[in-house]
């Protein structure tokens, strides 16, 4: 386990109290808290380096551009991208996937083609493909999940028999924490002739990611889920694919020459970064990556898996609690999705909140998955490097209180 007390000192917000209790923040799959190093990097950027990038002919603007491009190199190295120019900064995973659907998808998917997604995809890796398929008259094929919350490999195989143009799936499920066999899925999809889009929103913060080893074609990530600022994120792609794609948004920065009625476009990645970018976000994300690297993604993954295992152990001892998702070692990231009898997850969240415990309650932007689990909502505790076993105990203790209020355990 990591030295949680020492790590927590780096996160000013975690020292707060909520409803008179120490804050127990267990909603890290939604967003993460920020270490002082990230806050400092953003402030320092504005205090010393701020100017518009890629345009200024003066030293300050050159330094701003260098900071922005250094952040790009940092992201590239963190996920072992094919090249820094294969990293397009976006507002987050959602925009990155919309970019792939809107550019690569619109240029390559035609009427009658098939796009494959999975029943455990977050709405952000589903709705952009629905929109694309509706526009093109293409078919969206959703791969089923097994009862214990894994991608059904047999159904995945059947979907591939339809020779899809694009296969999209999450590396790690945000709702269940399932770690999918991403390299295997990618290689199967490639053998069927598809281009592979991996939603990395939940994997990048919690595992060592190597996109070249995965060999996927597109990989999307969000900065705010990995200690970085909101509104930061990236699409990581094979550079030759980006080269072949039409622009996504038009505007400044993405052009080479502009005529009255047409334009030529900038080289990648700038072709996909129209307008003034979120430099503050990129700089903050680079600082977050430096922080994560100092600890090491492997150690973070191990820490979170221990917390998840402890939580599953504690929660399943409470009669009436059902935990969803796979149980095998290494098959689950630090996410524990559960229900408790007929207590609605929102009621659970309200009761836990009174003890200063923040969890997510709802469909987790994964309504197709909820339907398959036969629930409308679950409660979800999701851990990060700054959570400790004491917080697992607090979660279990507060759940017992919820049980008492609803008559499951003696008050």
């Amino acid at each position, binding site marked *: 386990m990591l030295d949680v007390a020492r790590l927590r000192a780096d996160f000013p917000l975690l020292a707060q109290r909520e409803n008179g209790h120490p804050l127990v923040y267990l909603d890290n799959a939604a967003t993460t808290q920020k270490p002082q190093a990230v806050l400092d990097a953003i402030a320092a950027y504005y205090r010393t380096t701020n100017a518009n990038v890629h345009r200024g002919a003066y030293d300050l603007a050159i330094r701003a551009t260098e900071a922005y491009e250094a952040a790009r190199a940092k992201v590239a190295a963190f996920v072992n991208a094919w090249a820094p120019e294969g990293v397009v900064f976006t507002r987050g995973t959602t925009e990155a996937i919309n970019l792939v659907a809107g550019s690569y998808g619109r240029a390559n998917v035609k009427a009658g083609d098939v796009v494959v997604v999975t029943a455990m995809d977050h709405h952000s890796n589903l709705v952009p493909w629905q929109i694309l398929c509706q526009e093109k008259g293409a078919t969206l094929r959703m791969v089923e999940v097994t009862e214990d919350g894994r991608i059904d490999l047999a159904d995945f195989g059947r979907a591939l028999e339809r020779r899809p143009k694009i296969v999209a799936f999450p590396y790690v499920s945000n709702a269940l924490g399932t770690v999918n066999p991403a390299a295997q899925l990618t290689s199967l999809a490639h053998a069927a002739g598809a281009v592979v889009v991996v939603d990395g929103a939940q994997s990048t913060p919690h595992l060592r990611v190597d996109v070249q080893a995965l060999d996927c074609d597109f990989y999307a990530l969000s900065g705010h889920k990995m200690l970085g600022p909101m509104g930061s994120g990236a699409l990581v792609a094979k550079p030759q694919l980006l080269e072949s794609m039409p622009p996504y948004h038009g505007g400044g920065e993405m052009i080479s020459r502009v005529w009255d009625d047409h334009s030529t476009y900038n080289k990648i990645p700038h072709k996909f970064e129209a307008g003034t970018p979120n430099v503050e976000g990129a700089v903050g994300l680079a600082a977050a990556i430096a922080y994560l690297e100092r600890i090491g993604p492997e150690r973070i993954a191990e820490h979170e898996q221990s917390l998840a295992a402890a939580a599953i152990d504690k929660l399943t001892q409470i009669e009436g609690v059902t935990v969803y998702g796979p149980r095998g070692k290494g098959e689950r990231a630090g996410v524990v999705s559960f229900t408790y009898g007929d207590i*609605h997850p*929102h009621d659970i969240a*309200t009761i836990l909140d*009174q003890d200063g415990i923040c969890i997510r309650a709802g469909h987790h932007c994964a309504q197709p998955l909820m339907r398959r689990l036969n629930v*409308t909502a679950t409660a979800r505790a999701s851990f990060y490097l700054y959570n400790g076993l004491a917080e697992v105990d607090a979660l*279990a*203790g507060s759940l017992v209180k919820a049980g008492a209020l*609803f008559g499951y355990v003696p008050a």
Partner: protein
Amino acid sequence: MDTSPPDPQLSALYQELILDHYRRPRNKGTLEHATHTVSLNNPLCGDEIDLQLRVDGDVIKDARFIGRGCSISQAAASMMTQLLKDKSVPQALALADRMSAMMQGDEGAARDKTLGELRSLAGVSRFPVRVKCALLPWNALTDAVRQERG
């Protein structure tokens, strides 16, 4: 493990009467010969209600609902359908206003006997994020009767 008793605000929120309506909802199901039907959902938390009314002249003769959601939204729907029977449409809209006032912490509304068992939901006003749960069925009601009045 924290074994202190639940705080009084929570006990006020989850009264037995509320849990009873949640677990044994009154007037749940489909209404024959409904004159008004409205479906509302809260996309953030997934609470759903289909409210059906049979209005004769200006009087709500019957009200039934189908819904899924938290204890607060489902208990509020159950209690509301009980209260609406034989109320005139203006009376029903006045009750909706009283309910809304109670959710904003109006203590006069919380003592107003015309709200019947719904007064047990007064504690919800201390939990601002849950107010929308208690008002979901009432929003369905006002949508339903205003449809016609356009």
